[in-house]
Structure formats: structure tokens, C-alpha cells
């Protein structure tokens, strides 16, 4: 097997004294789309934060493309190729849509100064071009979600981390986001780790799933081999 793009070994993390994640082992091959599923509070978001660097690890190591990134600060991890679309989207509310995307270019490192927001982001989300001068804080949830994904893509990540991309979003926008992510996977060959409770949505474009319970990964499998309903039943979602 080729070097995994992301390799997590024995990862533990928590908040102060309370441990939230235990012995997480997980590897993502290049181009793979892994759905991280489980009920509220099992540690899915904490795991994404630990990978992105906003939550320190208490144990274990992280490798990106074979390189140890365990001790890198969050902005260095972003520059190493990790793009984050966090829960609640976290667009910069008083920056315009265009400025949000320009902030996303920072992950390119020194190249960011000359870089322009690539056209393919507006091809993916035409709405963002129409509203490019609006303050991001005034956008609808769906528009903010598209912006957050576009902002992460502007940094040309190797690994895209998505936290509940369908949360609180109208069905027609969900469909658009699904198409965009499918495009990103097929055309850009991007590796994606997506946290999602809406299994029918991820089942349409993910390749593998990992289910969490009480801070541990309890089951992994291939999307093609199992139905969303069966897995949901097995892991009590």
C-alpha cells in the first residue's frame, strides 16, 4: 500500500483533565473520502480539531504525507496542506466574501501575496461570485457553507476536513454542496475526511466510513459494501 495521506496513531485528546478521545488509529489513502459518523458528543469534532491543530493532543502522532506534523502549530498544518471547514462554518463575519476567500489563500504560504482566488472556486459555487462584495456575516447558512468550503479550497489543501457540512442548510443547497464535493474528489483527487450525521448524504460520495462511540473508533468499513441504514442501526445513530 502507498503511503497514507493522513496517518493517525494512538491519538488521545481532551479538555483539561477530561479525556475525550482514546487510542484513535486511522489512515486515509490519497483520494479517499472517509465519513466519520457517530452520535452527538462522541468526539468527532474534537478529532477534527486535533488534526487541524486547534486542540492539542495528549497522546499519539499525526502524519501527513509521511511527515510528522504532531507538533506543528495550526497555521503550519494549514500550510502543510490541511484545509478545515469547521462546524458552524466560522466565516469572518465582517470580511466580504472575496476577502474571506483571499484569507484562505494564506495556506499557500509565501505564495499567498501574489496569488488570486482561483476561478474554479467560482465555477464550483457561482453564487459566491454574485455576492462577492457582501459581508459574510449577512449571508444565509447555505451561502456561508459554500464560502467556508471555497475558502478552504483556496489554500489548495491535500486533505479537506469537513465538519457537518449539511447542518442547518436547505435541501437544494445540500444538493449543490454534494455536487461540489463530488467534483472536488473526482477532478482534484482531493482526500476528504467528513464528519456527518446525515448518512444518506455522505453515502452518496464517501468511499469508506469510520464510526465512533465514546471517544473511540468502533467500526470501519466500505460504503459500497454496507447500507447506510444497516450501519446506522449497528452504531446506534
Amino acid at each position, binding site marked *: 500500500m502507498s503511503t497514507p495521506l493522513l496517518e493517525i496513531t494512538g491519538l488521545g485528546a481532551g479538555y483539561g483533565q477530561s479525556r475525550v478521545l482514546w487510542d484513535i488509529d486511522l489512515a486515509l489513502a490519497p483520494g479517499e473520502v472517509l465519513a466519520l459518523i457517530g452520535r452527538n458528543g462522541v468526539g468527532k469534532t474534537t478529532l477534527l480539531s486535533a488534526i487541524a491543530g486547534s486542540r492539542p493532543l495528549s497522546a499519539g502522532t499525526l502524519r501527513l504525507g509521511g511527515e510528522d506534523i504532531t507538533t506543528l502549530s*495550526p497555521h503550519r498544518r*494549514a500550510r502543510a496542506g490541511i484545509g478545515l471547514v469547521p462546524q458552524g462554518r466560522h466565516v*469572518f463575519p465582517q*470580511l466580504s466574501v472575496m476577502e474571506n476567500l483571499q484569507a*484562505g489563500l*494564506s495556506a499557500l504560504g509565501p505564495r499567498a501575496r501574489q496569488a488570486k482566488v482561483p476561478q474554479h472556486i467560482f465555477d464550483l459555487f457561482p453564487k459566491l461570485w454574485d455576492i462577492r462584495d457582501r459581508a459574510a456575516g449577512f449571508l444565509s447558512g447555505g451561502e456561508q457553507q459554500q464560502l467556508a468550503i471555497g475558502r478552504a479550497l483556496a*489554500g489548495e489543501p491535500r486533505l479537506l476536513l469537513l465538519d457537518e457540512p449539511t447542518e442547518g442548510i436547505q435541501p437544494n443547497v445540500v444538493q449543490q454542496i454534494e455536487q461540489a464535493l463530488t467534483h472536488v474528489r473526482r477532478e482534484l483527487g482531493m482526500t476528504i475526511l467528513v464528519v456527518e450525521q446525515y448518512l444518506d448524504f455522505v453515502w452518496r460520495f464517501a468511499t469508506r466510513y469510520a464510526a465512533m462511540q465514546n471517544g473511540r473508533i468502533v467500526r470501519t468499513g466500505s460504503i459500497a459494501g454496507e447500507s447506510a441504514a444497516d450501519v446506522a442501526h449497528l452504531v446506534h445513530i
Partner: protein
Amino acid sequence: MSGILVATQLFNGLSLASIYLLAALGLALSFGLMRVINMAHGELLMLGGYFAWGTLGLVPGPLGILVALPVAFLGSAAVGAVIETTLIRRLSARPLDTLLGTWGVSLILQQAARDLFGAIGVEVRAPDWLSGAWTLGGVTLPSARLFIMLVALAVLGALALLLRRSRLGLLVRAVNQDRMMASACGIDAGRVDLAVFCLGSGIAGMAGVMLALLGPVTPNVGQGYIVPAFLVVVMGGLGSILGTTVAALILGLFLALSQIFVDVSIAQMLMLVFVIVFIQFRPQGVAPARTRALDA
């Protein structure tokens, strides 16, 4: 109450407001972005005054003061860089520690200036083109004060342009609005902090040059301006450039216009009461909520 008196005090109020603004902008920047209460800010003003004195010693002549402005900007910014990297960065997890730490820096800088330049202070002679005065309808407008207003306007304009239009300004606003997310986008928030602190320190240095035009530069000249500068920042709505500007105007005009009726120490007391009452009714300051961030 004559019209000329009111007009004179209006002018004095605007002049005072421009000094308050120059003194407060740097504080507003570092507080707005880093939540750092920089007690050494007054000493960065003081340093600017000494930079002006030193520059005019080396470059006499009418344009020395125009050379002193960039020299003081760079000099104070460099001192700010040292303070940020050696102290503030290491204490930033606990805001109260930075308050105490920078207070220590303030004392050290004051004593250093006393040892180096003497306790009495030094005199900066304004060039001839700044010593005169204009008269407009019976109101005397000293050139030095007009010059200070111009510099304050120019600094404000340049700062607004920097924050609104430059790449650095974009990064500063992003870090200010969501530090965690800015880091996740690849922005080095620590470097942005350093740049902002240097910028604020540099503006304080230029404010110090302006103070040198108004009176002698002494080791504790900054102390006289730090309290009004803090009042302006608090009233302006912690960290907003627009709010800081409006608050400087309100306080400058309040102080000058109240002196039509009362003497200067009563006027200062009234100003304090005014700020306290104002904050009771509008704790968020003059800036509207939407533009509270480091916006122009």
C-alpha cells in the same frame, strides 16, 4: 460669551482631539487585536519626543521635523518589537500579567530616559514655519496646532487605507474576527500580532514628535497623555478605529468647550464624570456593534 471665544475653544478642542487620537490609536490597535493593555504606551510617546529631539540635532533646518516623523515611527516601532517579542508574547495567556509587565517596562524606560537625558527634559525648537499663527476672523490658529491636525488626519487616513486595502490589513481583520479560524487558514497570528504592535508603537512615536512641538520632552511626558488615551480607547469601544476617532473628538471638544465656563482642573474632572456616565449607558462605546472590529 463671545463668538470668538467659542470659536477659539472649538479650535482648541479639535487640536486636543487630534493629539488624543494620535496617542490613542496605537493603544486601540494593540487592545483591539491582542487584548493587551499596554501600560508602556506613554513611554513610546516619550521616546518619539526624544527621537524628534535627536533628529533635529542631526538635521537642523526647516524640514527636520518632517524627517523626525519617520525616524520616530521606525524607532518606536523597533522598541515595540522588542517589547512584544521579549515580554508580551510570553505573557499573552494572562492579560493581567501583560498589564503588570508593561507597567514595569514603563518604569524602566522612564528611568532610562532620566539617566540618559536628565530629569529636566529637552527642548525641541519648532521650525519657523511652525512657530507662527494664522488669524481667521479674530481667532488665532497656531501653525503648530494646524500641523498636528494635519498629521493626525494623515495618520488616520493611512491607517484606514492599510486596514481596508492591504494584504496585511486583511490578515489583521481576519485574526481580529476569528483567531482560531485565521490560524486554520494558514495565517501566522503571532506575526500579525507583532506587526500590529509595531504599528501601534510607531504611531505612538509620531504622536511623541507632535508633543515635542507643544512643550519640553521630559522622561514622564507620556504619563500626562496615557490617561486621556485610555479614556478615548474605552469610550471608543475597545479596538475600533472609527470609535476611537469619534471618542477623541468628543473628549477633546468636551474638555475645551467646558473651559469656557470652568477652569482646566474642573474641566478634567467633568470629563472623567462624563466618561463614567457615558459608559454606564453605552458600555460598548461609541462604535456601533457591527463595526467594532479593527475597521476603518
